[in-house]
């Protein structure tokens, strides 16, 4: 059975990847074109409708969530390492933007193709693209630093330690206002405003939202590309091997530590780039944002969408981010105005969310769009009992062998 899937998979997946990629590109370009060329001259009702249901800020936010969910997907979905502290990388990336694109360090005056606000040259103002790269590199380094000691742990223990780091890093940001007299993070006040993006002589401020959306969508697109290419490459296959069976993978010559660290670093990079992008989206960095719930929401995007499958994660991230920032409020408004009630729908967020998760776990554990492999594993019981029994025997056999 395994052989048949193997033979059928490549041609099939490549085809479906192409379809999905074209779909993603079409949707992004459509959103851009509608907002750039149609909305400015559209009738007021249409404007109101789009602003309420598909506002560009939330679209940009969704793209950033896609980027980050795909980053976490590499750690959780590809390499099978449960990470409950992903928000730490978002925070680190965000603060890189805060440090390098604002007046935070006002004792210095550095401007490298940056965009300091008129009349306020103090602080460090680097170019957005450079900050993206630096943010990615910085978080990758931190990914390795955090990963090196923790990745020796397994399953639950690893999850606990990542949870710890996810709590520690934001706490450092909250308390980093006075580190030996040096104001690193500006504490709970956060760093704002972060400079407007300026690329090739064009400034993208708070009202060039369509262009900004395109920038964030390109970042998400790049991450999709990297995710797909990495998965098929040597490293990606090593990750999958570790996910399926760590022991077997190491027996086959996969260097466990290095491969796991690579997944952590790549995942962290995406978090860092996402952090930089998010800081420019809202024009500031605030320590309060980086709480445990964010880690969980991003993890849910990966799990709901379909662990390990790039397109599943894309759908999961889009859906959850949209429901969170727009959907719930708008559907609530419609229901309220139709029934004349005044129910605060967003406050039921977690209830709806929890029920959804339970239903998913009961009826569709593998997510909306599962990876082919995961689907096979999750639905093992659907195959004949005989097959399962032989499987068990086989597994036992392996264990036996090991002990000998």
């Amino acid at each position: 059975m395994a052989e048949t899937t193997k033979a059928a998979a490549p041609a099939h997946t490549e085809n479906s990847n192409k379809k999905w990629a074209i779909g993603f590109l079409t949707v992004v370009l459509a959103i851009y074109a509608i907002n750039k060329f149609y909305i400015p001259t559209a009738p007021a009702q249409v404007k109101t409708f789009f602003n309420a249901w598909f506002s560009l800020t939330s679209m940009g936010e969704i793209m950033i969530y896609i980027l980050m969910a795909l980053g976490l997907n590499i750690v959780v979905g590809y390499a099978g390492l449960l990470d409950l502290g992903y928000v730490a990388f978002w925070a680190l990336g965000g603060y890189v933007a805060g440090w390098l694109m604002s007046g935070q360090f006002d004792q210095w005056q550095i401007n490298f193709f940056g965009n300091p606000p008129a009349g306020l040259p103090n602080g460090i103002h680097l170019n957005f693209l450079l900050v993206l790269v630096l943010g990615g590199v910085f978080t990758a380094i931190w990914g390795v630093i955090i990963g090196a000691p923790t990745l020796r742990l397994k399953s639950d223990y690893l999850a606990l330690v990542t949870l710890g780091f996810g709590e520690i890093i934001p706490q450092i940001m909250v308390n980093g206002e006075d580190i030996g007299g040096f104001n690193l993070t500006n504490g709970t006040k956060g760093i704002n405003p972060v400079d407007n993006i300026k690329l090739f002589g064009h400034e993208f401020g708070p009202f060039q939202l369509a262009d900004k959306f395109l920038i964030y969508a390109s970042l998400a697109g790049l991450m999709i590309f990297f995710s797909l290419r990495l998965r098929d490459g040597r490293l990606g296959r090593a990750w999958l091997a570790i996910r399926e069976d760590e022991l077997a993978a190491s027996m086959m010559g996969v260097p466990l530590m290095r491969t796991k660290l690579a997944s952590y670093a790549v995942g962290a990079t995406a978090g860092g780039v996402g952090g930089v992008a998010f800081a420019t989206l809202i024009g500031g960095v605030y320590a309060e944002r980086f709480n445990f719930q964010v880690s969980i929401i991003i993890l849910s995007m990966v799990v709901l969408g379909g662990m390990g499958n790039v397109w599943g994660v894309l759908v999961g991230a889009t859906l959850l981010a949209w429901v969170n920032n727009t959907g719930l409020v708008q559907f609530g408004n419609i229901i309220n105005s139709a029934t004349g009630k005044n129910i605060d729908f967003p406050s039921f967020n977690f209830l709806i969310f929890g029920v959804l998760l339970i239903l998913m776990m009961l009826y569709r554990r593998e997510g909306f769009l599962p990876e082919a492999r995961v689907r096979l594993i999750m639905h093992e019981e659907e195959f004949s009992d005989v097959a399962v029994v032989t499987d068990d025997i086989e597994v036992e056999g392996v264990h036996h062998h090991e002990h000998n």
Partner: protein
Amino acid sequence: MIKSIKIGALAIAGAIALAACGGGSSSSALVVGTDLPLQGASADASTATNNAIALYLEQVGGKAGKYTVTIKQYDDSTAAKGAWDDAQCAKNAQDHVANAAEVAVMGTYNSGCAKIEVPVLNQDPNGPMLMVSHANTNPGLTVSWDPGEPEKYYPGGTRNYARVVPNDIWQGTADGQFVFQEMKKTKCAVLNDNQTYGQGIAKAFADEFAKQGGTVVVNEAWDAKQTSYTALFQKIKAAGADCVFFGGIYDNNGGTLMKDSVAVLGDNKAFFKMAPDGFSGYPDLQGMPQAEGLYLSFAGKSLDGMVKGGGAAGKFVTDYKTKYGVDPASSYSIYGASAMQVILKAIAASDGTRKGVTAALLGGTSPVCLTDAESITGVGFCIDPKTGDVDKKSVTIQTMTGGKETDLKVWDVQ
């Protein structure tokens, strides 16, 4: 497939039709947005503020000069955070600008949120767009405070932000003057909770207390996650302090702080302790025997003081109770109506454009003022056209007596 497309198209058409119901505006019909955290811990206060504003607008017939004004409510919190959310604030700012009929914003409740929204409203191509807050007390929004403040919030170069409550400098300053002059204390320990509000108010208190001639013997942050503050108060005792100032909010482990301070230093009659409005309005604290005799302060007037003062404020609070069946949750709701008064006054004096409304309040030479009789808080004031700060710096001093916050006096900053 075709069927599902048809259904989808119908759904979208239906949604457009629904969304369209709210539209339609002529040039004399203007919208003022309110921008408040409607979910989480501040939800009650925010709802009361929206109610108070709606009531006030109803009382003036929805008019500002020749313009008809309606309210549009925005929520700057998310259920997930249970408090104001940075991304939501950024989105709201863009939505204010995108809503063509909207000319000004009443809000926000949290200074952090205002710091995101003000620069965006400031860069509005048809603006700058005016924001008047009823509750932001962080000084940096209007006056020189942290590096780059307040200029960094006004990238367009002109001001578009005002507020009707005195900022933390004035509350801390009033407390410093009161403690030194009235309570005759000379050695104060100043604590802060390491957050924006707490640090600001503690700094203002310490500066003014020292300026008056007092000595700040301990100036430290308390860690909200600590389980005991005994060591901290031992240190304060050893330093020979005769007063303690808690610059911060009660949520940051204020209960433990209060209990430990009494255990080490003695009750509030024996040892003078004072806290700013970050400790006001907490039933937990009010019910705590250790809080008896604690001095509190409050920027502006308390709800109690407004009602007792009678006049416009007393009548408004009574009207509120008649209409909604409950008392307004806090005096911030009345200040919300007060901020609305300022906005309406600016609209009436303007040409009905965003730019015009902002210019009517800020950047000119003659300030917009409300008389004692006009002002819904019962106290007249002017908005400084240069900074947007209020000129009436009244701070209410209270004591905790019998489990209730009781007004002692109103301290006007000298």
